[in-house]
């Protein structure tokens, strides 16, 4: 008896994970439009410098997060899958971090050695 109850619960849960209420999709959809509009506005108003960078990155990560979490259902997936997908990104993060240092170094040496009065 207990076993069957558990089965039913699981079935419900399983169904929940695969189909959500339509409202949530529509909301996310709307949010994506709004965020894209905002990030377009960053260019429209020609924000520059750190403000531009942080705004661009902020909207980008928010959009990416929404798509992954809700459209790709990662929000409802078990942590085992989520972890497997997100941990490898540390390698990419490390690569990005080091390449930032690398391009600055290359740029510096190029100005220093190739451009009159550079650096």
């Amino acid at each position, binding site marked *: 008896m207990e076993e069957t109850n558990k089965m039913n619960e699981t079935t419900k849960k399983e169904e929940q994970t695969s189909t959500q209420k339509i409202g949530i999709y529509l909301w996310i959809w709307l949010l994506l439009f709004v965020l894209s509009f905002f990030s377009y506005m960053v260019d429209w108003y020609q924000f520059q410098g750190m403000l531009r960078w942080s705004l661009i990155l902020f909207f980008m990560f928010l959009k990416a997060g929404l798509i992954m979490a809700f459209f790709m259902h990662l929000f409802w997936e078990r942590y085992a899958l989520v972890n497997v997908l997100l941990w*490898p990104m540390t390698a990419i993060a*490390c*690569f990005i971090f*080091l390449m930032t240092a*690398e391009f600055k170094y290359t740029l510096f040496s190029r100005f220093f050695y190739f451009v009159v009065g550079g650096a």
Partner: protein
Amino acid sequence: MSDEYDNNKSYQAQSSEVIDGSTGSVNPDIDYVRPAEVGEQDLYHGHSFIEKWVFCQDAKVIGVQYFLTAVFTGIVGLILSWLMRLQLGFPGLAGFMTAEHYYQFVTMHGMIMVVYFLTALFLGGFGNYLIPLMVGARDMVFPYVNMLSFWMFFVAVAVLMASFFVPGGPTGAGWTLYPPQTILEGTPGSGMGILLMLISLSLFVIGFTMGGLNYMITILQARTRGMTLMRMPLTVWGIFTATVLAMLAFPALLVSAIMMTLDKVLQTSFFMPTILKAGEVLEYGGGSPILFQHLFWFFGHPEVYIVALPAFGIVSDLISVHARKNIFGYRMMVWAIVGIGGLSFFVWAHHMYVSGMNPWFGFFFATTTLIIAVPTAMKVYNWILTLWRGNIRINTVMLWCLGFIVTFVNGGITGIFLGNVSVDVPLSDTYFVIAHFHMVMGIAPLMVIMGAVYHWFPLVAGKMLHEGLGKWHFWITFLGAYSIYFPMHYLGFIGVPRRYFEMYDSPYMTSAVGMNEFISIAAFIVGAAQFILVFNIIKTLKTGKKAEQNPWKANSLEWYTSTVPPEHGNFGERLPVVHRWPYDFSVPGAKDDFIPQTTAPSEVIHTEVEKT
């Protein structure tokens, strides 16, 4: 000699801990294993000869196809190395050997051995054959994609081999393909040769991705009942981690191949700065050659472990079975494999200490690189501690394993030289490097491959390989290979640079002549000795002794198939149910000195240590 050990009774055979997610409580039935979560796999059995042996969807046939194709490329690579050694040991002896040819042979030898031989052999060959058998699956999860994977690899090999016959010949840029020289005149094969190489590599990556998805999902999602991750044989762990690395590292190779193809074909300047060639300034500007090196080694270093980790895994199993002893510190071994794999993405630029990159990277990469030495050393300790107080069969398989330990420890320790940034400075780009990586990722994995061939041949072919021939094969190979690469380190100490077609006019290098002759002769012998195995296989297939079902008395599932060799679907009517790890050897009180993974705890209850 006392044969009685004081077995600590507190250690229990690792039998079924019952997993019950809902309560975490222990099920009173000690043989209980969770019911199947996934339905029976729908298998497509081939109907015609072509469907059974050519475009076959059976992972075992695909594995053999991968194996044979990889061995074919390996033999090509071997012949190329003979030609190189001929030139180095006896310059001018072969009249056709020009510098162009020499560099083409160097390049093709390197690329073939690393990518098309070792990677394909371990992951495509052993991976396909062993994964489904060892985790108790009927087949790979996507047999059709798996079949495509092999044929993609086959086409990649065909394209690679075609480059020998195009005008200008194959590329001679060195296997690292560093731009700008790779695509400039002045390097042999900078026309068609390099293009075919890049296309072939891209095809290989695509084909491998197809296979790799199969290996990963089969291991993650298609294990049999009772087969938890921590009950998988280390072979599967090694191949699994290597596959993960490959899935994440090959993208960098693909990207660099695409970018270099564009540099070559469309004159883009990704990797090409302003270049003055033959008095002309070329149509390039602003690119960065070092970017290629970063991308290449972001792939290239994990690639080293793609070759090494399956070897680690397989050798652990072989040692355990033939020492009749459980692998020492299984958990540590698993975490070491995973840790090495993870860390391998953070160490790539230790190949680039003298490349002119940002000098501060040296600190970062030296530190991360030497951290890897710790899990690697742990693995070595655990191998020898597995031998310790074992009951070691000194047969051919065990000899290869012992040979692996010697060569691997040797090569691993020279790795500490090269990983330690300022020690690398005098040694990089010398013969020391060549000696190091041949020892650690050439000879050592090869030892494992050979051991694995002798170990699993009875399963694949149903016949036992000849032991005597096997021992001759081992000793010639081991002693020969050791005497090639051990002295070669000393050429590096002298400062002899690598990739030199001819070198003896330097005053301080003259003493190297004698050693080079010796090394060349040893190389010829070792290469030739490999044909002992070919002879052995042919002879065995014809007249060999028929193998029993489980000739080595091993525990893992591949020996408990319905037939030997296993048929399509592997396990007959019912999939096996797993109750324990595969290393229950010499359990005190048990009848035999091995307890198969499928044996339920109630069947060995009299051992008294079997408590759940």
